């Protein structure tokens, strides 16, 4: 540390130093930003190698710096993850390369491309880097939906890839949740609040004048099973479709499922946690994820989510 100098003129001698030293200097000089990344893979072929390589200087994959409830590097942990059998034999990332080796799964001996999974990790960028370029190697059918921070997701397919990066706004976080086990005609309320005297929190469409994703409602069984949905400052209300006599006989035991992506915003900026509460029947389960923290089941009492 003592021999390191922040002067720009020292660059050349540092570069000729031993590799271990060069690594030290690199990290010490540049302040970096960590952006959470979610990759949703679909139609991935078995028995193949997938890779993502960045060619933009100053951008690298990272494990992040948080412990506790941080999601870090994860596989199929998010509320919208596909469940079922894995197709991965090995997965590795270093600086600019993320590689996934898929194995031969039992049901897809014909080599069909039908595997889906979700990964999360961080993108480490040097301050001032506002876009990203690179290339990826995938099977031709494969589609990867990549979300950087709170931005609208980008589609990556086999070939060149890119993404525009924006500095994250301090008092907005994306939130996604899945509602499972609802019956026809149920009323489900999701309430967001903060500790009294500490701050205020509201549902939001995302930061103004930015590439935010707004509010998105997704039916996970084809149709969105709702008769109504309403958003107020702090309460989201869903009413599921009442059962139809004709359909009731055919799937009387069936439960409804849907998911939603939205944002929360709060004041003052230094608020560190909020509460979520689900007002619904106790056999309905609401699994929520705030930004890059681990998902948690929302109880009928206040449930703590850090920001």
């Amino acid at each position, binding site marked *: 540390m003592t021999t390191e100098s922040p002067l720009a003129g020292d660059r050349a001698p540092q570069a000729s130093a031993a*590799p271990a030293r*060069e*690594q*030290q200097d*690199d*990290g*010490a000089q540049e302040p970096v930003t960590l952006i959470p990344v979610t990759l949703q893979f679909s139609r991935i072929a078995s028995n193949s190698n997938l890779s993502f390589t960045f060619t933009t200087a100053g951008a*690298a*994959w*990272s*494990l*992040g*710096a*948080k*412990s*506790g409830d*941080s*999601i*870090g*590097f*994860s*596989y*199929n*942990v998010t509320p919208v*993850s596909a*469940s079922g*059998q*894995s*197709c*991965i*034999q*090995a*997965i*590795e*990332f*270093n*600086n600019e*390369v993320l590689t996934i*080796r*898929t*194995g*031969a*799964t039992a049901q897809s001996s014909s080599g069909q491309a039908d595997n889906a999974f979700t990964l999360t990790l961080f993108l480490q960028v040097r301050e001032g880097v506002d876009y990203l370029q690179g290339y990826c190697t995938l099977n031709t059918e494969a589609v990867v939906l990549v979300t950087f921070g709170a931005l609208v997701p980008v589609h990556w397919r086999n070939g060149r890839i890119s993404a525009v990066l924006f500095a994250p*706004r301090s008092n907005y976080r994306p939130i996604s949740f899945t509602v499972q086990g609802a019956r026809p005609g149920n009323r489900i309320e999701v309430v967001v609040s903060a*500790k*009294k*005297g*500490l*701050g*205020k929190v509201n549902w939001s469409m995302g*930061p*103004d*004048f930015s590439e935010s994703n707004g509010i998105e409602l997704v039916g996970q069984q084809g149709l969105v099973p709702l008769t109504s949905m309403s958003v107020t400052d702090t309460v989201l209300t869903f009413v599921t479709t009442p059962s139809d006599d004709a359909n009731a006989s055919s799937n009387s035991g069936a439960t409804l499922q849907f998911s939603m992506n939205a944002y929360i*915003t709060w*004041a*003052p*900026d230094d608020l*560190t*946690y909020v509460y979520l509460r689900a007002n619904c029947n106790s056999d309905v389960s609401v699994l929520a994820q705030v930004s890059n923290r*681990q998902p948690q089941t929302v109880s009928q009492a206040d449930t703590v989510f850090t920001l």
Partner: protein
Amino acid sequence: METKAKNPIKDPQSGGPALAAKAATPAAAVAGVPDQTVIQAIARERSALPDEARQFLGAHLLANRSRALNEQCFTQVHTFKPLTLTFSAVRANSKAFLTLRPDEAAIWSDGGKGNRLVGLSVSSRLDPVLYVSNFLINAREMYLQTYQDAQEIQIDLYVRTLQRGIRGNVDLPPGASVTLRSTNDRSTVIGVSSFAIELGEH
């Protein structure tokens, strides 16, 4: 009336700054700078609280004691020591946990920057695929959840630390074991145990 008439004439003279200032004011108001009324409402709520509750309002700041230490390791430590963790015989539908102690000045890492081809990897050499329904690795913790009997799951990573060794805890299902191997030490643990491993200098 007179002032209004003057303004359009003045504007082109004073040029950019006047226009920029005009544009900036509404933008700042819209773009989420908290409204004074909200801040006042929060302050009113706070003053309405009983003394005891007010005293412990900031108590949550003590809750995550590793946070500052993680941040410090991430920004100030640039020494990466390789470590291999091998989980063996993890039975179906079970969960294996492994964490670094919260007071260790060490975090898991992918190896930082540099022209390396080896970073953080999760793989299996014995099973055709990783029999995990999900896994998670963050700065101190990791877990794996299986859906089928897994013979072996190997995780290669780095420990970002200046310490000569690290300590941590594991929580494994019956029958499973985990072997930690650094450049100069090895340790195998089962069940709910703690571990300590030398990482060596460099």
